[in-house]
């Protein structure tokens, strides 16, 4: 497959891994612990597990910390309950991306609401939801807008399109969140021992490089904006290690084929026109983070499901046994959580990190439960 296989070349991977091993050993020795690199984005978590990168990299000197960048995973229970409540309003067609269907609320998931009779439909784009609104003028279509800056522009453009066409039976339940305040919250966490970051490629495609400057300047941590193919991840990792071993802290861009320094001006303009920052937004596991979410501006109030309908808007505490927050901050690994694989499994997730294939816990459960063996041994199993 063109434009994909080039970035999955095992030969090039071996060269990069040898370089990574060479760099990481002295860095880890100097710290007396394994290096901790956070991949902010759930897409990277997915790549790391899907291609088995973790099993190819040195185990004792290097650890990946799986960051908060899976929008499905950081959704608090109360918001899922709100979704279910909206979906249960008679005459509503509630539309959502597929992987949000299974996220548990305190009263069940959207999948369960659907089984209970709510009209919940999976869409692939907010434009699909708008099309449903066009086709069903007598119904109210609500789109569950979810995601970081990556999906914000498509939602914004859909709202602008709805307004242009004068479509009145379409609205958003807006749960878009922004990545920068969240990275800052993680960096301010006292338990933190991160050494560097792989920056989110898709978010950066929209916002560009500059918003990350504070990570390098104020917190002294290197960050490399990374693509999503396995060689992208390895090369970005190598770039972080190179910065560390040369004593540099910079924002570097490995994903230059997609990410421009200034981001995407048109996308940013649409986002700016439609959305404004909320004072704070609740994150699963991380609690309330200032200015970390957006809502529709007053000019688009008629497209805001939170204004158009009655939303319970209750704050539901995360289950006590859940350690999602510690996993998100890299304080513990998914399999060190008290309920991992017992009370919390992909079939019956307690925390949403166990739901999406981008969630660190689900990735550990699906792809990594087998104790990682020394690499020599795995070679033997393969005939």
């Amino acid at each position: 497959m063109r434009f994909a296989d080039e970035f999955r070349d095992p030969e090039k991977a071996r060269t990069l891994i040898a370089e990574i091993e060479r760099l990481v050993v002295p860095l880890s020795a100097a710290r007396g612990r394994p290096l901790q690199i956070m991949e902010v984005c759930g897409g990277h978590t997915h790549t790391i597990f899907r291609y088995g990168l973790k099993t190819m990299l040195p185990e004792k000197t290097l650890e990946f910390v799986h960051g908060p960048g899976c929008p499905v995973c950081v959704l608090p229970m109360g918001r899922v309950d709100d979704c279910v409540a909206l979906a249960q309003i008679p005459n509503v067609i509630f539309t959502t991306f597929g992987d949000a269907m299974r996220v548990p609320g305190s009263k069940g998931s959207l999948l369960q609401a659907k089984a209970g009779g709510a009209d919940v439909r999976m869409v692939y784009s907010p434009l699909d939801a708008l099309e449903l609104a066009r086709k069903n003028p007598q119904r109210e279509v609500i789109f569950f807008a979810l995601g970081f800056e990556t999906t914000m522009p498509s939602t914004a453009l859909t709202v602008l399109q709805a307004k242009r066409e004068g479509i009145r039976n379409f609205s958003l339940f807006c749960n878009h969140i922004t990545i920068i305040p969240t990275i800052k919250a993680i960096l301010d966490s006292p338990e933190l021992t991160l050494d560097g970051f792989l920056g989110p490629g898709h978010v950066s495609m929209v916002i560009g490089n500059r918003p990350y400057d504070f990570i390098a300047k104020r917190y002294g941590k290197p960050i490399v904006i990374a693509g999503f193919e396995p060689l992208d991840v390895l090369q970005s990792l190598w770039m972080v290690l190179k910065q560390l071993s040369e004593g540099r802290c910079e924002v570097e861009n490995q994903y230059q084929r997609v990410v421009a320094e200034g981001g995407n001006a048109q996308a940013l303009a649409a986002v700016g026109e439609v959305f404004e920052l909320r004072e704070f937004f609740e994150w699963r596991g991380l609690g309330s983070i200032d200015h970390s979410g957006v809502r529709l501006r007053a000019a688009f109030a008629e497209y805001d499901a939170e204004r158009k309908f009655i939303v319970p808007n209750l704050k539901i505490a995360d289950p006590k046994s859940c350690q999602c927050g510690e996993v998100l901050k890299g304080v513990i690994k998914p399999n060190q959580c008290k309920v991992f694989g017992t009370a919390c499994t992909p079939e019956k997730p307690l925390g949403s990190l166990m739901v999406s294939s981008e969630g660190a816990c689900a990735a550990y459960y699906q792809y990594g439960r087998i104790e990682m063996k020394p690499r020599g041994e795995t070679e033997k199993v393969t005939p």
Partner: protein
Amino acid sequence: MKLDDHPGNIPPPSGVVTMAHGGGGRAMRTLIERIVLPAFNNPLLAPLEDQARVPLAELTALGDRLAFTTDSYVVTPLTFPGGDIGKLAVCGTVNDLAMSGARPLYLTCGLVIEEGLEMAQLAQLVQSMAHTAHAAGVAIVTGDTKVVERGAADKLFINTAGIGVVAAGVNISATRARPGDAVIVNGSLGDHGVAILLARNELALAAEVLSDCQPLHELVAAMLVACPDIHCLRDATRGGVATVLNEFALSSKVGIRLREADIPVNEVVRGACEILGLDPLYLANEGKLVAIVPGESADMVLAAMRAHPAGREAAIVGTVTADPVGSVVLSTAFGGYRVVDMLVGEQLPRIC
């Protein structure tokens, strides 16, 4: 009407199926006589008794065990590239029989029709069943038709049960995988799953994939000639190859090691999976089997499969290992490895 009248000359009734067609009276008789019977026409069905009577001697001549199975078919849309619900309903049950090594012989046909279905479409789907059964050498010998109110079913549900005979000495079971055995598939994975996704037209992807829907019993017969001691055999329908291999690993208390680089997947299916974040190992197939055979017989079985149209792209994709017990591990083409678990619920496309 006698069944040996010329069925091809009777046009199907026009209009749509109504509740009257399920009422057991004249309307129902018309539907059965003009759509179902002419299509399925065979000597065991012809007497139109409440049951088909199968001479035992005919069965015992073929083997020493009866294989008996049932499956219900629900699919949207009813017709898709490479097949339709009628073809699916015959292939699926033929394949369930074939996976025991049985020679499939007789099927039943239960139709549950939602009122409002076009007669012409019903006739076409029943013809498709008949055609597929004829090509597969099985007879549809008894059946039942029900009509339900609008909303109580999705256009048409079909149940088929089937019987076949297993030859003496053939002993295929999910519990028989042993370390050193080879894992073989008969061709590219995920074609049916992606064909259905595309046919639903929700994705606006301009691509064509044909469902792999096909009967596999002749392929299995050829495989059994090459190696009478096939250990495990299952068709990888819902849940895909990953689910079947996990079942084998759990039942046989062994590990299974897959090699991603050797797994056949169509380029278009790969592309669709990339875009949607799906894994071909979990996609449904309707004409693909997974076989576990003794390592020393693997090449012979593979050659026999490749000589058959349903196995032209067959490939050895992995090996049975002693451990980790109950787990399937994939060596990625990139050089790492990961666990391939059972599918939880449905595969849901990722957000971004």
